[in-house]
């Protein structure tokens, strides 16, 4: 073991040249396909997810057009049912969850000061599997085989008897794809956060966004098995004739709903918790002070993550479960207002003691507070059993969950894109179009969705492809549809702004907002190795408290990819560990997995024969390269 290949004592330029040799991806297509750089993959993930957002948005516009007047004929019932199923499945599984995880994939390693995510090949694999799942769903839709049983796919409607053809199978298999990719990312994030934090970043110095992603990753890991079980049982019912959900043969219809919502409710928090982390990050930076009540914020995040598993029955208040049991779930559902409220109070306290700079990310945070709090209030209403019997499955609920998902997650996300755009691209995102875009999105959103509360109270059920003129719904529906154009214009402006700024925006420099966290302690965009020297952290706001120069750790080797492993609690250095090279095998494994999964829609034998190529690719993936043992 010679010490001259360590970074100790090397000058910056020499060190960067050495790091470039081992960390940079190959040029050209091969490099793109084989890279395991969390930033390349994160960017790709984010861009793909936003692509699906556009597609899902177009579906939403088609639905708004169809509902803008009674007895419209733009979409026939078959098409409409595919469209709303696609919209929901796409937005939940292909946009919202992936985009939040993608933000974690890109920013968590930077924020904890490490050089790559843990299990980077698994991370690359997860992206390809996700992409394949998306292509499967949209390909099926284009072939008139899009699922048409709702994003919740209740049995028996989605069962073998009432959904002939392959539409429901495609839905169930798309779930499998996104489960695999979400789990892979979650595992990588947990290990990154626990074992790769910069020296000195004790748990109580971790940025709130990192905490949020950590909690989210655990929720993913705990929630996914339920939906894996459910969708597998559904596929078995459909493909090989089991009777899990067939009441005529002793199966149970409600079992599906329990399993689905045991996952489906936490799913909402998988989307919302990262957004909370984004809000905290933005507020801290633009108030120029840490968020008030760090410990309370962390406990609230953990509390939401735990409570998320105790609420699923509130999706089933009208199924005729015992009333006493239902009242318990009223209590637990309303209880989530407590940690959520606590967070809001802490943000308000932060704003109160500061003079916040109203840059575009902050404007989105304000839009978030207005909208999300309202959505939280209607959430408390639907948690009440008697009120829910009227509100459930009506347009009131459509309004409610768009308030919490768009207001509670998409607004913070758009703010976070503005905030981190300099880090993602090296350029600032236009502030002037940004303000307009925020205004349009905010106004368009509220004008579109607020009237739906009233429509629901006036008896309009969800998932109807049309309604009759003798019902008093036409006016508000037309109003909502016109407002949706405004909302779409806001999104269009956002995309145009991002597109243009990525090319012509003002160069950003390392830390344009004067932010406190480590991702701002490196170039924008960061080099493939993230940090030339691993920073050492002495507080929760290292860039504010270090007064200029950060202390750095030395001693990593420069002749191979290496990163620092630290202890879970205190982040004291424990070992140097090699980080995997680029590899084409994750892509090949993803292709093999996808082929097997799609094939198995048609015959159970695919599971047998399809496993062989997967095994081959996995052998290639893990083939030992004679890398020397890691050293302490």
């Amino acid at each position, binding site marked *: 073991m010679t010490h001259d290949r360590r970074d100790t004592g090397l000058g910056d330029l020499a060190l960067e040249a050495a790091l470039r040799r081992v960390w940079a991806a190959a040029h050209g297509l091969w490099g793109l396909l084989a890279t395991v750089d969390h930033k390349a993959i994160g960017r790709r993930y984010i861009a793909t997810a936003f692509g699906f957002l556009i597609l899902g948005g177009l579906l939403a516009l088609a639905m708004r057009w169809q509902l803008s007047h009674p007895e419209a004929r733009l979409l026939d*019932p*078959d098409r409409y*049912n595919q469209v709303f199923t696609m919209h929901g499945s796409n937005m939940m599984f292909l946009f919202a969850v992936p985009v939040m995880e993608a933000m974690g994939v890109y920013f968590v390693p930077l924020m904890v000061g490490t050089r790559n995510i843990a299990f980077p090949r698994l991370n690359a694999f997860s992206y390809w599997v996700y992409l394949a799942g998306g292509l499967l769903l949209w390909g099926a839709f284009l072939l008139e085989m899009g699922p048409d049983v709702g994003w919740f796919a209740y049995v*028996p*409607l989605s069962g073998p*008897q*009432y959904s002939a053809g392959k539409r429901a199978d495609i839905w169930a298999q798309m779930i499998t794809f996104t489960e695999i990719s979400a789990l892979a990312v979650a595992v990588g994030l947990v290990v990154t956060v626990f074992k790769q934090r910069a020296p000195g970043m004790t748990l109580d110095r971790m940025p709130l966004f990192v905490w949020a992603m950590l909690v989210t990753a655990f929720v993913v890991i705990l929630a996914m098995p339920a939906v894996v079980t459910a969708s597998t049982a559904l596929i078995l019912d459909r493909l090989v004739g089991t009777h899990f959900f067939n*009441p005529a043969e002793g199966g*149970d*219809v*409600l079992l599906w709903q329990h399993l689905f919502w045991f996952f489906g409710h936490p799913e909402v928090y998988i989307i919302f918790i990262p957004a909370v982390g984004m809000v905290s990050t933005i507020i801290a930076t633009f108030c120029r002070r840490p968020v008030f*009540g760090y410990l309370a914020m962390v406990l609230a995040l953990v509390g939401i993550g735990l409570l998320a598993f105790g609420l699923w029955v509130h999706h089933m208040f*009208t*199924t*005729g479960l015992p*009333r006493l049991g*239902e*009242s318990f779930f*009223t209590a637990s559902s*309303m209880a989530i*207002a*407590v940690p959520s*409220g*606590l967070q809001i*109070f802490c943000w*308000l*306290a932060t*704003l*109160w*003691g*500061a*003079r916040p700079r109203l840059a575009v990310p902050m404007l989105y945070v304000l839009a978030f*507070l*207005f909208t999300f*709090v*309202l959505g939280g*209030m*209607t959430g*408390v*209403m639907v948690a*009440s*059993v*008697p*009120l*829910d*019997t*009227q509100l*459930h*499955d*009506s347009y009131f609920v459509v309004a409610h969950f768009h308030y919490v998902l768009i207001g509670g997650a998409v607004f913070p996300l758009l703010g976070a894109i503005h905030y981190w755009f300099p880090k993602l691209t090296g350029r600032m995102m236009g502030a002037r179009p940004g303000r307009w875009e925020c205004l349009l999105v905010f106004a368009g959103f509220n004008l579109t969705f607020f009237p739906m509360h*009233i429509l629901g*109270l*006036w*008896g309009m059920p*969800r998932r*109807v*492809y*049309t*309604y009759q003129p003798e019902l*008093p719904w036409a006016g508000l529906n037309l109003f909502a549809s016109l407002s949706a154009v405004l909302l779409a214009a806001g999104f269009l402006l956002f995309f145009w702004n991002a597109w243009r700024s990525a090319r012509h925006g003002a160069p950003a420099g390392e830390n344009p907002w004067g932010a406190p966290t480590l991702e701002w302690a490196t170039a924008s965009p960061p080099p493939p190795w993230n940090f030339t020297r691993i920073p050492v952290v002495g507080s929760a706001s290292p860039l504010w408290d270090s007064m200029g120069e950060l202390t750095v750790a030395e001693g990593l080797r420069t002749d191979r990819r290496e990163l620092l492993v630290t202890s879970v609690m205190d982040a004291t250095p424990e070992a140097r560990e090699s980080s995997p090279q680029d590899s084409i095998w994750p892509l090949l494994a993803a292709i093999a997995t996808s082929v097997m999964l799609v094939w198995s829609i048609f015959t159970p034998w695919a599971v047998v024969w399809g496993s062989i190529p997967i095994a081959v690719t996995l052998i290639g993936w893990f083939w030992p390269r004679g890398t020397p043992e890691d050293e302490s």
Partner: protein
Amino acid sequence: MTGGWQSALAPGGSSADAILRLFWPTVALLGLIWLAVLLVLAAALLRRARPEAPRRAGAVVGAATAGTVLVVIGLTLASYLVTRPISAAADAPLIVQLRGLQWWWQATYPEEGEASGFVTANELHLPLGRPVRLELSAEDVIHSFWVPNLAGKQDMIPGRDNALTFTPTVPGVYRAQCAEFCGLQHARMALLVVVEPPEEFARWRAVQAAPATAEALAAEGRQVFERQPCGACHTVRGTGAAGRTGPDLTHLASRGTLAAGLLPMTRGALAAWIADPQTLKPGNNMPLVPLSADELQALTAWLASLR
């Protein structure tokens, strides 16, 4: 703006009424909280910042959180108190069995004392002021019965028996609609609920229980109906037609609407429906039966006479 005959805001029954009395105070309380949050936010943005002593801020945040806990407890209790009466069993209710099918409703009024039982479809009549217990079931997939003016919704689930109990308190015609997505024509699965004084209800019940009237039975359209496959799916009591997979047509013309709320019950609508049910309600389970113009006319006239 109370939204009319399919609205939770215009109650005509005990349950809907109790729920609405919980609804408005809840809206008021939560609306105030929302406004308060926005006011604090606005104040925080507008005031000249002077860093607050962290201890005071801590106390305020703590108090606000405690306030949230109290609100949550209060609303949980209130919701529980309203749940009890609306799910309580009633004394001597009128029992009606309502079954959801893709995409229509079958109602069975069992015999009760003097009154004999019968089966009808797509329209309920309920006596004013008497509790009713609807026994809900489903034939194929999950449906959900929702008549917002009278009560909250209750799902109809294959393999499970659910019930909904309430008392109609305001006479009128209300519209119910399936609230659980049930496939292609989920949007076209509605049902009229007529709440009327007990005497009128008794008259209606007697008419419905009787077979089709003698003069109607003599008409020419009847032969068309019996010649064609209609009777394989439909029942007209008094004829040989005893099919069960479609709505009972014995007193078809007494109903307000046709094909689960699709069209008003007129002769023109009837003719259009029989001539081509698949264009009016694509995918529904009644096939197009080819008929000559004369047959169609006779059949329509006959069906329109089944009052």
